[in-house]
């Protein structure tokens, strides 16, 4: 306790705008998350609304927005997530090698410190989906980073010095780290990645002061692993029963069960409960894993302190399409059918928008948020089961035969990029994929540390359409969309809604767009140096509002380079030119910070 308090005080004195710290990180963050001048956790607040009450930049003046400053990370590959702003410091992270930069906003963004971990390069090869990282977390004067090699490291927020580190998993069997840590109470929580390698998903809590593991909860296996109570843990109001995490599997297959937890975690401090989702079951070939594959594709509610499961709900039992259930859980308190409810709203990869009572785990609503969705016709609210369309069953079609025209594609109607919810409009803003697929399961054998996929995919936009993305405003109570913007590319950037009546989001072309929260009218767009797959945030410094976003998808189009080059020198010429281009073209990610002048 003494040590913690000391760390807290250090932090307060170092940071101009930080509120006075209390002894507990929990209390500190509970206050800080309500301070719109800072951006203290990846999803903005514990409810994961990614909403800011700031309104200096608003519907009327956003057209005057311009770049205030920018910062190059110098790191290639896809830049997911976004920076934190704590007091006068901004913390920017990168994909592998997972650098962290502390920028001092009071000194024009000068680098206060840089942290670069030493990691074995071979981890790159086992990251299925680019070497991304979704951000760092802050608490009690420390910055927490979840590295690609699964190491969780606590850095002194003032100096960047390592306070402690803990190893969460084993990259040799395919476990990796991509998720942002979540801090609640005195625990730092991380979920693992590696669902394509037959690893077991788990959520693990570490003590923020020491790095000591406090609990670990697996997504499948006996109750001692899943931390489920056969009588007290419920699924749609009923007790789950003994060893429910073994029930949906044949033999020992749960040991390769997947259900990784690479998304986001929300926290309800009033009930001390965390909420997150688990991903696809091991192997994409459903014929090889008969059963419901519990508890993959599941929304989890767990007690923060003990990890004990309070309730679960499996959205896609026996997945046949790789519809990971890891997307964020947004906690919203509002009326549902005339009654005040504590809701959990979740836009799943499978294309359904789920509304649940987060206290009881009751399923209140589930509607398609993309009309293209065709693998299921609806969700039965009583049983919780999706009503599947037999023609879209990849298992019924069988191995080595493609099932055609399934919507959505494996990337889902929406992927990990988190939505935003505005209490002002009562609407959710969904960054969406609008993509369908042919899916061909193939037989696969498990080899530790090798991909355990077993499916071949072909992707395309829904029939008769050419846009691969949608940006949608969604009314969660009416359960329908209010407006939508068709985007050429899938929207892979987490939006930000503000009290200025503006919603910001990024596109693959690199545009930062500002749209009217009520109508979707595009009010402003600016092309950043690369595609945007990062999440937008906002903060104030010196009383002025800024909007910040990471761009960077890892490639460069090199259009100009092709001009005039003759065919046989293309290869060599390109290599030489790339080298020359590094002088002026930033191939790495860029943080762009916007302001409205005046």
């Amino acid at each position, binding site marked *: 306790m003494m040590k913690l308090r000391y760390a807290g005080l250090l932090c307060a004195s170092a940071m101009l705008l930080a509120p006075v710290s209390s002894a507990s990180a929990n209390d500190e963050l509970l206050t800080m998350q309500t301070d719109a001048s800072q951006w203290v956790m990846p999803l903005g607040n514990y409810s994961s609304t990614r909403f800011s009450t700031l309104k200096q930049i608003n519907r009327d003046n956003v057209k005057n927005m311009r770049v205030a400053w920018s910062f190059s990370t110098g790191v290639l590959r896809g830049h997911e997530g976004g920076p934190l702003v704590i007091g006068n410091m901004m913390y920017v992270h990168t994909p592998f090698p997972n650098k962290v930069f502390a920028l001092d906003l009071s000194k024009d963004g000068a680098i206060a410190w840089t942290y670069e971990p030493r990691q074995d390069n071979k981890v790159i090869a086992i990251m299925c989906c680019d070497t991304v990282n979704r951000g760092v977390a802050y608490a009690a004067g420390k910055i927490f980073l979840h590295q690609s090699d699964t190491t969780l490291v606590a850095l002194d927020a003032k100096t960047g010095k390592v306070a402690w580190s803990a190893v969460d998993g084993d990259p040799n069997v395919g476990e990796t780290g991509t998720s942002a840590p979540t801090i609640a109470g005195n625990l730092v929580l991380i979920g693992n990645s590696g669902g394509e390698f037959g690893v077991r998903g788990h959520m693990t809590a570490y003590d923020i002061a020491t790095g000591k593991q406090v609990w670990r909860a697996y997504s499948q296996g006996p109750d001692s692993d899943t931390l489920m109570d056969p009588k007290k843990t419920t699924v749609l109001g009923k007790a789950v029963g003994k060893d429910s995490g073994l029930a949906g599997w044949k033999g020992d297959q749960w040991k390769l069960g997947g259900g990784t937890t690479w998304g986001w975690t929300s926290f309800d401090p009033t009930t001390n409960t965390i909420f997150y989702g688990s991903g696809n079951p091991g192997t994409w070939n459903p014929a090889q894993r008969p059963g419901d594959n519990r508890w993959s594709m599941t929304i989890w509610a767990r007690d923060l302190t003990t990890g004990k499961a309070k309730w679960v709900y499996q959205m896609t039992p026996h997945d046949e399409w790789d519809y990971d259930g890891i997307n964020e859980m947004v906690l919203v308190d509002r009326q549902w059918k005339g009654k005040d409810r504590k809701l959990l709203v979740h836009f799943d990869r499978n294309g359904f928008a789920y509304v649940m009572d987060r206290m009881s785990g009751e399923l209140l609503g589930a509607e398609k948020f993309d009309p293209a969705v065709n693998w299921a016709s609806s969700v039965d609210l009583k049983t919780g089961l999706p009503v599947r369309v037999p023609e879209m069953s990849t298992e019924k079609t069988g191995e080595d035969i493609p099932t055609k025209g399934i919507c959505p594609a494996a990337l889902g109607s929406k992927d990990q990029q988190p939505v935003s919810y505005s209490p002002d409009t009562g609407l959710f803003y969904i960054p969406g994929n609008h993509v369908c697929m042919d899916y061909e399961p193939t037989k696969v054998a498990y080899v530790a540390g090798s991909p355990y996929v077993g499916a071949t995919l072909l992707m395309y936009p829904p029939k008769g359409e050419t846009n691969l993305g949608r940006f949608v405003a969604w009314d969660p109570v009416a359960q329908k969309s209010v407006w939508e913007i068709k985007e050429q*590319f899938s929207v892979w950037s987490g939006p930000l809604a503000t009290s200025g009546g503006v919603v910001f989001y990024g596109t693959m072309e690199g545009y930062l767009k500002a749209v009217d929260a009520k109508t979707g009218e595009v009010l402003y767009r600016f*092309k950043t140096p690369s595609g945007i797959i990062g999440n937008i945030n906002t903060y104030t410094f010196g009383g002025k509002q800024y909007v910040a976003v990471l761009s960077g998808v890892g*490639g460069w189009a090199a259009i100009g380079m092709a001009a005039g080059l003759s065919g046989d020198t293309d290869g060599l010429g390109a290599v030489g030119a790339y080298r020359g281009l590094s002088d002026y*073209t930033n191939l790495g990610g860029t943080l762009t910070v916007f302001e409205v002048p005046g």
Partner: protein
Amino acid sequence: MILSLLLLQAATMSSAGYPTSARAEYVLGCMTANGRAPDMLQRCSCSIDVIASLIPYDDYVTAETVLTMRGVAGERASMINDVQVLRAPVQRLREAQVEADLRCF
């Protein structure tokens, strides 16, 4: 670290909807690949002007985005590389560039 250069990008928009910064980036890449002589400045500028006269800026950006994802790893890149509807804008850009090569080089 602070790039005031970027400030200019929003303000300067040349004809045919191509921002000056987009043309400049093309010319810089072109000169890096082909040489930095004054003659090459003319040829490379000619090349982007021809392209700008043949395809709308938004289509140029679409092609640029697709080309950016070539050689990038992961699900996102493989999707963009797979999708047929995105091949047409790239093809149109290639054709415009061939036309530009004929006229300018």
